[in-house]
């Protein structure tokens, strides 16, 4: 079917209307496209992450590059001075790998707040603005289920969350892999890559769920933003104060964000760091926060689709 001319005459549609399985895809792509139109927030929110990624990637690269300056023949030769040098270099390499792991974890924990900012900025208006403007009437007047709608909105915010919390870590892992001698990083520390992906995903899902929940409860985008940060501050402060007063770190599990940090310590296997709260409690905290957020969001979206 081709549009031949500007006629202002109504032409019946001759094509086919299909019932698709993934009806959320057009809404997802439209959501991402619209969000990317505003360049200034994009620049401001991604700049700290981009700068951090470049700095950490450079540090990881340079530390491996310095070590790679030693002659390969010095490695692995038993006995005598070359053997001692080889042993020392192997020990240095092992230490270097641990340092790289630590740096990647430090990067994650340091940039968490920026990726949360990113998620909050792009997610806060997704449901609140639809409802305020009445745009959900246009969507739900079409064969779009509320699961499709919610999936599209969740994946829109998760896309930006993943850009902020998974991608930078993976970039540093790739740099470490290529910079490490004989690919030793990926061979010895492959779990860091998995942990990077796993923790980034967990943080994205947690952040996106909470932000969408706040958006579904708010009448305006700004209220959702305020709500997210108020909740963040409140649970973190309450958890910390109760933990301090009761001298029990488990109280910190009140904050799903601190619980996620505890899970990061577990995922990256950081034995040298203080473990803090109980790991099971941390998982319960994070899972509960996600499930509760989804339950509330589902209820609110149901009210947008069909008001009983």
């Amino acid at each position: 079917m081709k549009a031949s001319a500007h006629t202002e005459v109504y032409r019946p549609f001759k094509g086919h209307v299909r019932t698709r399985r993934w009806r959320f895809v057009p809404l997802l792509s439209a959501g991402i496209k619209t969000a990317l139109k505003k360049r200034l927030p994009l620049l401001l929110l991604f700049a700290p992450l981009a700068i951090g990624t470049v700095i950490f990637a450079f540090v990881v690269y340079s530390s491996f590059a310095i070590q790679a300056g030693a002659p390969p023949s010095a490695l692995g030769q038993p006995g005598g001075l070359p053997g001692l040098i080889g042993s020392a270099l192997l020990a240095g390499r092992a230490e270097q790998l641990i340092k790289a792991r630590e740096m990647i974890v430090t990067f994650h924990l340091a940039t968490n707040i920026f990726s949360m900012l990113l998620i909050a900025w792009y997610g806060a208006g997704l449901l609140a603005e639809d409802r305020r403007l009445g745009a959900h009437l246009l969507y739900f007047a079409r064969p779009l289920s509320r699961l499709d709608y919610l999936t599209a909105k969740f994946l829109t915010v998760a896309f930006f969350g993943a850009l902020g919390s998974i991608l930078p870590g993976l970039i540093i892992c790739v740099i470490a892999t290529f910079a490490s001698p004989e690919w030793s990083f990926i061979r010895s520390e492959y779990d860091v890559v998995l942990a990077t992906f796993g923790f980034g995903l967990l943080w994205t899902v947690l952040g996106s769920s909470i932000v969408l929940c706040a958006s579904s409860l708010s009448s305006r985008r700004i209220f959702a933003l305020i709500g997210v940060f108020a909740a963040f501050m409140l649970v973190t402060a309450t958890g910390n104060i109760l933990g301090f007063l009761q001298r029990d770190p488990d109280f910190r599990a009140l904050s799903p964000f601190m619980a996620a940090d505890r899970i990061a310590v577990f995922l990256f296997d950081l034995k040298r760091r203080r473990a803090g709260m109980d790991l099971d409690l941390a998982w319960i905290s994070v899972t509960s926060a996600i499930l509760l957020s989804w339950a509330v969001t589902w209820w609110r979206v149901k009210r947008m689709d069909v008001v009983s």
Partner: protein
Amino acid sequence: MTDAVVSLRELVKSYGRVRALDGLTIDLAPGPVGLLGPNGAGKTTLLKLLLGLLAPDSGEARIAGQDPRTSAGRLAVRQSIGYMPEGDCLLPQTTAVELVTTLARLSGLTRDDAMTRAHEVLDYVGLDESRYRDCDGYSTGMKQRLKLAQALVHDPPILLLDEPTNGLDPKGRRHMLDLVHDLGHVQKKSLLLCSHLLPDVERCCRDVVVLQKGRVVSQGSIADMTKSSGYAVKVEFDGDAAQLAQQLERRGLSVGIQAASTWTIELPDQDCDVVFQAALEADVRIRNVVPVRATLEEAFLETLARDSRANP
């Protein structure tokens, strides 16, 4: 009525203590139908119930044979309906082409078809180069036309139009009414035009349903509704007015004088021979005789007043 596009049975919907729809039972035939009623009569509630955007407290609503209360029925209904909401409901930072294309794809069109179709309907509603601009800067008229375009993009057989001429200037209103008239009468779409502007409904629709306080107070064709309870004709003549008045009075006919040579004469029945006989005897030449009909506005107000008296 077996071929009803919309069929409602004892439909009830309340918002707290306020009963928006009170046991509505109607069948609407295919074609353009106006949904009239004062503010708060339940027009928008009815449209949302038909789309499944609201759930009824009791009763049944069927549109195109589907029940929007069930999930499958709701999806089927929404496939065959184009809905133009009353409010703005357009997302900022989105161009008309992007919006209509996205909504077309949500309706099940392929990417290419959606783009082509979006341009076709935007052409039809008369959004030219502005279709590439963000909707934020659109005038009310452009927003209304864009909303009509998105309702048409999947070429649905049924259109639900909620106050399509709201906030439009006379030119924009005329354009919108032309489009709605074309859709209803030329493209033969079944449309439910919800409005409180009676001339709009009079121009675009054949049948009307009048709602008040959630109840149907009148339903039928506009021609039937606007038919006067008595018979009257408007007569234009040349000649001696006094003679004619005398002849009409002799025959017991009452006369309303609109202008020197244009009178409204009330008749005992549809036969207006008596007027011609009076004119013949008065030596007056009749130039024009037309039956007098009430306007839709008069009929509407009379219907509402009658209902208010019956249900105070």
